[in-house]
C-alpha cells in the first residue's frame, strides 16, 4: 500500500492478521482482540445513548413539552442514563484500552485468565441483550437510579429485564476487574516492580478494586428489586415495613464508587499522555500512583452525600460530607502534578495532548463543583437540579470521554497499525471541548436558579440556559461523530504507523504496531523507570532488550 509495506513482510503476523475468520474473532482469547470486541460493542451503545440524549435536548429547547410525550421523555432519559453508565462508561476504558494495554504494558503475553476475559465479553453482551429487550419491550422510566418504591411498585415499564441486564453486565465488570488485578499482581515481566509500573496500570488497578468490591452489592440490590417487584413483599415498601432509603444506601454503595470506575481510567490515560507529550518524566510519580488507590478507597466512604435531603440522619450526613471533602485531595494532587509536569517540558500539541489538556480543564471544573455538592447547605439547594446534572457530566462525560478519546488516538497506531488524520483529530478535540462546555456550563446556572432535573417541561425563565445547552449539544454531537468516521477511515487509508510513533517509553511501544498475538517475541526484561523522557526528544524505553534486538541476536 505504501513504501513501508514491504517491511511488514518480515514481521510475524500481527494480532489482527493472525487469522481472519469470524470464529477467530468470536472465540479469541487474545486480550487485544477482546479489547476490540468491547470497543465495537460500547461504541454502538455510546451512539444509542447519545441518540436518546439528543432527543432529550431537543425536547428541552422549549419550556413546554411539545416534542414527545412525558412517558417517552422519561424513558429517554432513563435509557440515556442506563446505557451510558452501565453499557458505555463503566466498561469504556477498562475493557477496551485496559484489556488491550494492561498485559502489554507489564510485559505479559496475555491476561491472567484469557478465557474468563472472553467470557466477560459474552456476559456483557448477554446483559446488553436484556437491556435491548427491555428497550424494545417498552423501555424503562425509573431513571438510571431505580429509586424505590417507584421502581418496585409504581412504574409500569420493563424494570425487571433492565435490572437483569445490568446485573449480568455487572458480573462482566467484576470479571474484568478480577482479571486485571491478578494480571497486575502475577504477570509482570522481570524487572517490572510496582514503582516501575506505568501510572495507567496503577489507575486500572484502583479501578479494578472498585469493580470487584462494589459491583456485587449492586447485583444483590438488583436481585432485591426484582424480588420486590415480582412478589410485592415489602423489602423497600414502607407500607409493608420496608425502608426505601435502604435501597438508596445499597445503590449508592455501588454507584458512588462507580463514578470512580469511570474517572480513574480517564486519569490513567491522561497521566500517560501528559508526560509523553511534554517529553518529561511525570511530576510526583508516587503521589499520583497512591492518589489513585486513595481515590478508590475513599470513594467507598462517601456514598451518603447523594442523600443529604433524603431523610438520612443529619449526623450521618455530616460524616459523609466531611469525607467527601477529603476525597477531593487525591484528585487535586493529580491535577497539580499534571500541571507541574508541563513545567519546563517540550510540549507538542498533538491530538491526544489536546484531549488530555481538555480533560484537565473539564475535570477541574467537575471536581470543584463536586465540592459545592459536598457542602451540605449548598447541596440542599442544588441537589436534584441541573447543577448536579452539569457536575456529573463534567466528570463522567467531559472528563471520562475526553480521556477515552485521547487514549484511543494515542494508542490508535498501536491498535490499528495506522495513524489517524492529525488535522481532523485536532478539529474533533476542539469541537468536543467547546461543544461540551457550551452544553453543560449553562446547566450549572440553570441548576442554581432552581431548575429540577428530569423535567420534561420547565418554567420559562430557564429557557435561555436550555437553548444554549441544546445548541452546545448539537456541536458536541458533531464532535463525537467525527472521530467515528475518520478512525474507521484510517483503518484502511491511514498512514502506516511505525512501532513507536510518539517516541514513548512504555513496553507497548517497544513491540510492533500492531503487536503480534503474544505481544512480545520473548518476555521483555524491564530495565528502566517509566517516563524517562528528555526534552530533546530522546528517551529511555522501559526495556532495552527490545524485541528486534533479541530477534537479531537470535538470527546471528
Amino acid at each position, binding site marked *: 500500500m505504501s513504501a513501508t509495506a514491504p517491511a511488514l513482510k518480515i514481521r510475524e503476523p500481527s494480532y489482527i492478521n493472525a487469522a481472519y475468520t469470524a470464529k477467530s474473532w468470536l472465540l479469541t482469547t487474545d486480550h487485544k482482540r477482546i479489547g476490540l470486541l468491547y470497543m465495537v460493542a460500547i461504541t454502538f451503545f455510546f451512539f444509542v445513548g447519545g441518540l436518546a440524549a439528543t432527543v432529550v435536548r431537543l425536547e428541552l429547547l422549549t419550556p413546554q413539552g411539545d416534542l414527545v410525550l412525558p412517558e417517552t421523555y422519561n424513558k429517554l432519559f432513563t435509557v440515556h442514563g442506563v446505557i451510558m453508565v452501565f453499557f458505555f462508561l463503566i466498561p469504556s476504558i477498562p475493557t477496551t484500552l485496559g484489556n488491550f494495554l494492561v498485559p502489554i504494558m507489564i510485559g505479559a503475553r496475555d491476561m491472567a485468565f484469557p478465557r474468563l476475559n472472553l467470557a466477560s465479553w459474552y456476559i456483557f453482551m448477554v446483559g446488553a441483550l436484556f437491556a435491548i429487550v427491555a428497550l424494545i419491550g417498552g423501555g424503562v422510566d425509573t431513571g438510571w437510579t431505580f429509586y424505590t418504591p417507584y421502581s418496585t411498585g409504581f412504574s409500569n415499564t420493563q424494570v425487571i429485564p433492565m435490572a437483569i441486564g445490568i446485573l449480568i453486565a455487572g458480573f462482566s465488570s467484576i470479571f474484568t476487574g478480577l482479571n486485571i488485578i491478578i494480571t497486575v499482581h502475577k504477570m509482570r515481566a522481570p524487572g517490572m516492580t*510496582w514503582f516501575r509500573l506505568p501510572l495507567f496500570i496503577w489507575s486500572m488497578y484502583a479501578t479494578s478494586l472498585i469493580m470487584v*468490591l462494589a459491583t456485587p*452489592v449492586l447485583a444483590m440490590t438488583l436481585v432485591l428489586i426484582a424480588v420486590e417487584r415480582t412478589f410485592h413483599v415489602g423489602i423497600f415498601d414502607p407500607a409493608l415495613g420496608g425502608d426505601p432509603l435502604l435501597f438508596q444506601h445499597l445503590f449508592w454503595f455501588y454507584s458512588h464508587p462507580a463514578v470512580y470506575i469511570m474517572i480513574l481510567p480517564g486519569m490513567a490515560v491522561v497521566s500517560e499522555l501528559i508526560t509523553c507529550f511534554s517529553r518529561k518524566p511525570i511530576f510526583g510519580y508516587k503521589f499520583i500512583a497512591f492518589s489513585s488507590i486513595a481515590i478508590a478507597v475513599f470513594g467507598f466512604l462517601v456514598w451518603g452525600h447523594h442523600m443529604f435531603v433524603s431523610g438520612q*440522619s443529619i449526623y450521618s450526613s455530616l460524616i459523609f460530607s466531611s469525607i467527601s471533602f477529603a476525597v477531593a485531595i487525591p484528585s487535586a494532587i493529580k491535577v497539580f502534578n499534571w500541571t507541574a509536569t508541563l513545567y519546563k517540558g517540550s510540549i507538542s500539541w498533538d491530538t491526544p495532548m489536546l484531549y488530555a489538556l481538555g480533560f484537565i480543564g473539564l475535570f477541574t471544573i467537575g471536581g470543584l463543583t463536586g465540592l459545592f455538592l459536598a457542602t451540605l447547605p449548598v447541596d440542599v439547594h442544588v441537589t436534584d437540579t441541573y447543577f448536579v446534572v452539569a457536575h456529573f457530566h463534567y466528570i463522567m462525560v467531559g472528563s471520562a470521554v475526553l480521556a477515552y478519546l485521547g487514549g484511543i488516538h494515542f494508542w490508535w497506531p498501536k491498535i490499528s497499525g495506522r495513524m489517524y488524520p492529525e488535522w481532523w483529530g485536532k478539529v474533533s478535540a476542539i469541537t468536543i471541548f467547546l461543544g461540551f462546555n457550551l452544553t453543560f456550563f449553562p446547566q450549572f446556572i440553570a441548576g442554581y436558579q432552581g431548575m429540577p432535573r428530569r423535567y420534561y417541561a420547565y418554567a420559562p425563565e430557564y429557557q435561555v440556559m436550555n437553548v444554549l445547552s441544546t445548541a452546545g449539544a448539537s456541536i458536541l454531537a458533531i464532535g463525537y461523530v467525527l472521530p467515528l468516521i475518520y478512525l474507521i477511515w484510517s483503518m484502511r487509508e491511514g498512514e502506516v504507523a511505525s512501532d513507536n510513533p510518539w517516541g514513548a517509553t512504555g513496553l507497548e511501544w517497544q513491540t510492533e504496531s500492531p503487536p503480534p498475538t503474544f505481544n512480545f517475541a520473548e518476555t521483555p526484561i524491564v530495565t528502566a523507570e517509566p517516563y524517562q523522557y528528555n526534552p530533546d526528544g530522546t528517551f529511555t524505553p522501559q526495556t532495552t532488550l527490545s524485541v528486534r534486538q533479541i530477534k537479531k541476536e537470535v538470527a546471528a
Partner: protein
Amino acid sequence: MTQQTSQPTSERTAHQAPALRTYYLIFLALMLLLALTVAVSFVDLGAFNELIALAIAAVKAVLVILFFMHVRYSSRLTWVFAAAGFVWLLIMVGWTFSDYLSRGWMR
C-alpha cells in the same frame, strides 16, 4: 500489594499444608463452637445473645479461613485478598448503620 521480594517466599510456603491432625482438630473445634452457640441461644442474655452468636460465627469463619483454606500458610498477599472483602463489608455495615442508629437523635 506486597513487594516483589515476598513472592519467592510465598511460592515456597504455598505448598506448606497443615498436618492431617490439624484438620481434625479444627473440625472438632468447629463442632464444639456449634454446640456452644446453639446452647447459648437458649439462654436469655439480652443484647449479648446477638453479640455472642455473631462472635462465635466469626471465630468459626476465621478457623475455616485460616486452616481449611490454608490462609495461615499462605503469602501476605493472600491474607490481604482474604481480608479485603470483609473489610469492605465492615465499611458498608458501619456507614449504613451510622444513618439508622442516629436517625432518632433529632427529628
